[in-house]
């Protein structure tokens, strides 16, 4: 793999192939404001770690997992910082932006307005194709929590199918 050997042109081709998916993942998981920066962080981290990619899975799968881990870690740091500043507790599962029953709301917008925990699990399971066991491992929650948050997200989103 040329990119792993330090070929920036080869890496640019990989970026071109995968940037849309990584950026969309970041947008859905963390919001529009942070998506650009997170995408940059993911690809810079990928560039740094390319030598460790052994080709046991598709590059897209490896990159995607790296992206999910990085986005979740950044979100966790951000939540911790907000919690410290606000003297709040357990922001992870609080609905920062409550879903509102706006019938005309675009489905993508409705996803963004889901409570944080439910949104992350919904995006990882229904949009990205991860299994509950994988999600539970990534988020540090139980499989049961992953299932119940997914159901919660779907029940909210069914109001926005219009």
């Amino acid at each position, binding site marked *: 793999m040329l990119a792993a050997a330090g070929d*920036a042109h080869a890496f640019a081709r990989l*970026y071109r192939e995968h*940037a849309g998916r990584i950026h969309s993942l970041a947008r859905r998981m963390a919001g529009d404001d942070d998506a650009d920066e997170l995408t940059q962080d993911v690809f810079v981290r990928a560039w740094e770690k390319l030598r460790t990619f052994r080709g046991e899975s598709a590059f*897209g799968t490896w990159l995607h997992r790296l992206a999910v881990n990085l986005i979740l870690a950044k979100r966790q740091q951000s939540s911790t910082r907000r919690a410290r500043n606000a003297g709040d507790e357990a922001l992870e599962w609080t609905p920062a932006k409550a879903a509102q029953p706006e019938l005309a709301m675009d489905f993508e917008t409705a996803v963004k307005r889901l409570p944080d925990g439910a949104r992350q699990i*919904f995006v990882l399971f229904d949009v990205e194709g991860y299994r509950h066991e994988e999600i539970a491992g990534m988020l540090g929650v139980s499989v049961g929590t992953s299932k119940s948050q997914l*159901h919660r997200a779907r029940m909210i989103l*069914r109001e926005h*199918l219009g």
Partner: protein
Amino acid sequence: MTEPVTDPHDEWTARLSEYLDDELSPGERAGFEEHLRDCITCRVTLEQLRAVTVRAAALGNRDPGPHVWAEIARRIGAPDVTLEAPPPDAGDELAARRARRIRFPWVQAGAAAAAVLALGIGIGRWSTPTPRLPTERVEAPAPGTSMNSDAYRVAVAQHLTRTETLLTSFRAEAAGGQVDGTARDWAGQMLTNTRLLLDSPAADDPKLRTLLEDLELVLAQIAALPRQTDPNTTEVDLARRAVEEKQLLPRMQTLAPAGSPATQGES
């Protein structure tokens, strides 16, 4: 001390997603399908959740602006490297998994089709005071069955016959000033069945597909009516006029004539 009474409906409602994702044990699945047999609310909710999963899997990706790569290139020490046109989608394991998750009853395990379509299509008289299904049901054709088979013809004909009954009664009730929540409940169920048929090989027939699409719109209008509806409201009038203007009743009669397998044997 009295044991708290758990409503079995609540228990199953919370597990609709697990059923949809095929994560129930065989015993639980059988129990759920037994519940589904008599619960219109769960059938409709299940179909809505299925629609959410389909919509989620269909969400597209959007490339970031050029400034994103420019910053990456700077950070990796290659500021002069520009982007080339993207190659065709190579795909990967996650994408394949996601595609496999999009399930429609006609192409997934027969159990789902049996639970939703077959049970839903066996609707019976919609004017029954409580919305329970009759004992007669049309079994769903097995997945992969040809559209030319009797099974599909019977399923389609029965659906059209019963939707015709619903719309005829709705029209009469709207004219007589007695529209109640029963029409809405049955329309919701028939809407689910209509969508299932639209996703099935039965909809390969262009004439039938057009009819089902028109039915979908009208049934959605009726299903969205409040439980206690003033028959003089604009919503009722719009639904009633849509039935007339789209000539739904004569079109259904043409495609599901009296004496078809659907109507034979009904009491």
